[in-house]
């Protein structure tokens, strides 16, 4: 009769808290803030004290109070509710840009890296040229010809950011393809597409994601700027960028609160993303040292 002794490994909660404890203080705060924002976006309907579009012309430009934690704007709408609802748009749009830019960029990178040779050098040259076009100008151009709203800027920024991802992942892709496991796969009869999707892409993905934090920050600022210019989100939808724009009249009259609250949200989000991005980069260099 055999007795088997099973020692329990650390539970997943244990492992998670161990992981969390190893993060630095600032990384922790930054990631926590981003998680908090995501939750706010998800649960906006439950969290917002008022209807963000409900105007009340008798309560214009009020200061901070218990019923209006961030005061009201020039139409008497509750600023806090607008900020909360705006979280959805202000985060979702850059997220779309980053996700699609990553996918498109990786696809291009894998394709050219796999083909190699002159095709590869021509493509890389083309990518370099595309990088020469500033994203926000492309977005403005797109809006000019395709109309206002978020669709045109998001697509334009996706196109503008993809070459960056493509360049980045191409270097990694080339390295991976040179490894012996890829030669083994081709021996086994795997075509380029299958090999890429099933085997190479998962090895490249971490690098792309590491860069995403910083690019998410750029995308957030670019899109907020587009909305600020009135070319993105249209009233009455709330978005942090357009709230800053709309709040300008308040600023001139001495009631900067709505604009400043929206502005602060953007700054905090960008700071958190920058800290997370730097943290990931630090970790990566430490590991490769």
């Amino acid at each position: 009769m055999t007795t088997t002794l099973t020692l329990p490994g650390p539970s997943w909660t244990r492992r998670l808290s161990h992981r969390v404890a190893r993060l630095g203080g600032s990384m922790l705060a930054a990631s926590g803030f981003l998680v908090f924002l995501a939750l706010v976006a998800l649960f906006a309907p439950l969290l917002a004290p008022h209807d963000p579009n409900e105007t009340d012309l008798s309560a214009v430009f009020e200061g901070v109070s218990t019923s209006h934690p961030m005061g009201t704007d020039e139409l008497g709408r509750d600023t806090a509710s607008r900020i909360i609802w705006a979280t959805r748009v202000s985060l979702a749009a850059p997220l779309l840009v980053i996700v699609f830019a990553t996918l498109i960029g990786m696809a291009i990178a894998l394709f050219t890296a796999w083909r190699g040779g002159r095709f590869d050098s021509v493509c890389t040259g083309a990518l370099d040229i595309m990088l020469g076009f500033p994203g926000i100008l492309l977005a403005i151009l797109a809006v000019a010809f395709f109309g206002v709203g978020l669709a045109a800027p998001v697509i334009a920024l996706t196109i503008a950011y993809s070459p960056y991802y493509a360049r980045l992942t191409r270097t990694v892709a080339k390295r991976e393809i040179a490894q012996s496991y890829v030669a083994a796969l081709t021996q086994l009869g795997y075509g380029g597409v299958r090999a890429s999707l099933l085997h190479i892409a998962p090895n490249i993905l971490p690098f792309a994601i590491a860069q995403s934090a910083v690019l998410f920050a750029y995308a957030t600022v670019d899109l907020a700027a587009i909305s600020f210019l009135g070319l993105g989100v249209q009233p009455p939808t709330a978005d942090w960028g357009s709230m800053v724009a709309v709040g300008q009249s308040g600023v001139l009259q001495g009631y900067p609160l709505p604009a400043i609250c929206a502005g602060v949200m953007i700054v905090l989000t960008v700071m958190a993303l920058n800290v997370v991005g730097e943290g990931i980069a630090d970790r990566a260099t430490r590991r490769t040292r």
Partner: protein
Amino acid sequence: MIRYLLGRLGRLIAVLLFASALVFSAVYLAPGSPIGVLSGGRTLTPEQVQQLTEQYHLDDPLPVRYWAWLSGVLHGDFGQSVISRESVSTLIADRAGTTFLLVLYATVMIVVIGLSLGVFAALKGGKSDTAVVMGTGAMAAVPSFVAATVLVSLFAVRLAWFPVFGDGAGAGIVSQLWHLTLPAVALALAAMGVSARVTRTSVQQEQDNEFVHIARNRGLPSALVLRRHILRNALIPVTTAVGITVAGLIAGTVVVEQAFALNGLGTLLIQSVQAHDFAAVQAVTLILVTSFVVVNTLVDMTHPLLDPRLQRWQSA
């Protein structure tokens, strides 16, 4: 060396051709017929339709149209604004000065303040360094329009030290600079943060080089060592980063001009977009993109000047 310069020039031209092709073809990518796009949905008289067709060679094949447009552009002819009937080049000439001055002003701020902060933090270390790191981290996260809002509300509305709107053109250079100060700060703030960080990292790294220790041991005074062996070597990554940020200013000027209602190329662009004045949109976009690319190229070309290892001379 010559080969390198020619290479960079070639790349510059390639990018410009690509950009101009993109800007040009936007008209045809947009939904609707080209006439519909160019007229912005306005109804036109048959004569106006005929004029537009001629002006844009809409009866000719695409490459011909592109070439016609491009040669016009190279001669300074950007076509006519559908709205104001003026030639677009006149509109641009009126406003280019303000934009140029604004970008220049912001660049001076970035170079002077950003670099000094970075060098100061790297050399001092300790608490000063931590303060600069945190400060620049915050600065780098502030988009220009948010900075504009804060600056206007504090310095223009509350304290009334600076005017809120206008660019003071026509009232002398001092008035212009005074009007452009808040916009320049808003434009430069994030870039100052980034440049300070890059400078700090660069100087820190160069400080640890062995040849720096050896130079000190050989008796060279520390001021000389700092200047010729630390800062001089730190210049290379710093100019790259500053170059990128300055090029970014050109795109950022669009936002800042709008925030401060300045009469520059940026506001012209936005106005034209909202008024569906495509000739103007194309022209301004092309000018801004060209400036962006030219600045990047110029910065790239300083690299071999700064780092002899890039000069690719034949070694003896």
